[in-house]
């Protein structure tokens, strides 16, 4: 969602700036550069650029394979300690802040200006919350269980505490995440504040209904897709709230925890988290445009084409991961089941998801942060043209590329450490990573291609600017 969202919002802002002529040509050109994550000053053929990204991931696997000292590997993951837990007052302030922001967002969504980039609801949700806050859940720690306004509201209601059917596990959250991103892709959720406010209200209603039925703890720890996604991001973070205080560790190093993922359903959720980002970017490429136009030309319903592609793509991602676990079983010469292997290797994908989220949102967040502040200061009468940082230095895009790479390197390391924890033989542990490394290389290349391919408006779906 990140990628296209950012591009669409940024392009709306940039186009309107160009139209108004408020900024000089150079500044606008810099802002337009936001839309492409890589500078194109050096003429590198696309395939070579993609191969370099894939090669870097492959090289980090080869490098990691030199580290075979079990104690040394474990030491990274065991480093950490505890801090005192913050008091109840801070938790209460957190809850009230979340609640207040939700109320303002919904109110301004309905009553504020109908233009997306001038409406506080749109800029706050997509830049402040999705671009900024979500990054804090993996860079600092997951504060969502406290801030989560949906939970604060849901806990006001009594609960019937029905028994949650255990066989459903995390599958409803997978379906929920797929549904949320589906809505995000096929509706103008980033442009239309009224629609956004209604979606938030609907989300609140579903959360309250679920909590009333199963209890808020069960609902927000199992079914609610946003809470689950941020909880996984929080496992990457250096700080984490535990029963006896706040524990700290090296970023990403808790991903080898054998208890992090407990079943096929949770593996599917992590794969889904990675997949939805990719799909959202993919529908804004020429490849999808020509495919969709061709398919609709054959007489298929446009939304049907989107839907079938959406579900098929997810099945392909799951299939690729499952296949790589088959390779792990084969090359690692072990009797450990694919399921058990998948549960240990899947968390490494979270590091990749984190790297992409940060890389896709960094420039966007910095450039549009002034908009959030100014629009937030006067949400009902924002300026015609909210300010943006038009001239981001060129090295920002270099940092973005580096972040993608760092995410992958951490992922390779986490897979390496998990394998060393799982396999008695060190060589088997290395060989077991062949499949997952191949999948990561392929994923890097696909993502880099999506990020650097010029954006086209996804065909056949409403992307209007407000009602």
């Amino acid at each position: 969602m990140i990628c296209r969202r950012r591009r669409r919002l940024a392009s709306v802002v940039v186009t309107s700036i160009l139209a108004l002529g408020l900024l000089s040509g150079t500044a606008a050109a810099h802002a337009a550069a936001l839309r492409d994550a890589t500078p194109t000053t050096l003429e590198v053929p696309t395939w070579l650029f993609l191969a370099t990204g894939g090669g870097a991931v492959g090289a980090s696997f080869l490098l990691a394979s030199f580290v075979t000292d079990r104690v040394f590997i474990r030491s990274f993951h065991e480093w950490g300690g505890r801090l005192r837990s913050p008091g109840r007052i801070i938790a209460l302030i957190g809850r009230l802040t979340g609640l207040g922001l939700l109320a303002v967002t919904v109110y301004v969504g309905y009553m504020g200006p109908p233009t997306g980039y001038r409406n506080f609801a749109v800029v706050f949700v997509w830049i402040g919350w999705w671009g900024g806050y979500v990054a804090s859940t993996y860079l600092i720690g997951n504060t969502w269980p406290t801030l989560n306004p949906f939970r604060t509201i849901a806990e006001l209601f009594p609960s019937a505490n029905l028994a949650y059917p255990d066989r459903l596990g995390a599958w409803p959250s997978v379906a929920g995440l797929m549904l949320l991103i589906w809505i995000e892709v096929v509706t103008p959720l980033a442009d239309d504040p009224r629609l956004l406010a209604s979606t938030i209200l609907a989300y609140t209603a579903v959360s309250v209904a679920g909590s009333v039925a199963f209890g808020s703890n069960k609902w927000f720890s199992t079914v609610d897709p946003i809470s689950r996604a941020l909880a996984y991001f929080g496992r990457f973070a250096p700080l984490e709230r535990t029963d006896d205080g706040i524990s700290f560790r090296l970023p990403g190093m808790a991903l080898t925890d054998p208890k992090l993922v407990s079943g096929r359903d949770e593996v599917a959720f992590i794969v889904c988290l990675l997949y939805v980002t990719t799909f959202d970017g993919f529908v804004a490429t020429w490849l999808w445009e020509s495919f969709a136009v061709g398919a609709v030309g054959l007489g298929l319903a446009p939304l049907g084409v989107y839907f079938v592609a959406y579900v098929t793509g997810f099945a392909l991602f799951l299939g690729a991961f499952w296949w790589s676990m088959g390779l792990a079983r084969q090359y690692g010469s072990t009797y450990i089941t694919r399921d058990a292997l998948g549960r240990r290797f899947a968390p490494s994908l979270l590091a990749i998801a984190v790297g992409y989220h940060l890389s896709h949102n960094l420039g966007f967040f910095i450039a549009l942060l002034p908009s959030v502040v100014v629009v937030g200061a006067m949400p009902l009468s924002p300026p015609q043209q909210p300010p943006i940082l038009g001239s981001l230095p060129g090295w920002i895009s270099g940092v973005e590329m580096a972040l993608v790479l760092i995410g992958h390197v951490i992922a390779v390391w986490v897979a390496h450490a998990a394998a060393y924890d799982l396999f008695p033989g060190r060589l088997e542990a290395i060989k077991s990573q062949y499949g997952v490394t191949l999948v990561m290389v392929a994923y890097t290349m696909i993502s880099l291609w999506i990020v650097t391919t010029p954006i086209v408006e996804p065909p056949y779906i409403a992307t209007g600017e407000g009602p």
Partner: protein
Amino acid sequence: MTDAGRPETAVPADAEPVVCPYCGFELPDETQYRLHSGLEHYGSLTDDEREQFKQTYTDEETTLNRFRIIALGGLVALYFGFLVVYAVLAV
């Protein structure tokens, strides 16, 4: 193999696994069993078994070294491969 207990296994019908007497974990061969027993149950092993574990662990070093040479070759090929391709294409 960790706090969460041993991972579940599925043994093919025609295979003859080596079963760990301490935890029931199934392994495909004696070498893997020696390593497993030393890594997971070192405290319960006899002196003789500990010696066997150390021997197997040291022997593993030989195969690991072979792999490292191949991996190093891979890295060099990757590096110089890209270097050459960039030199030719990205002027």
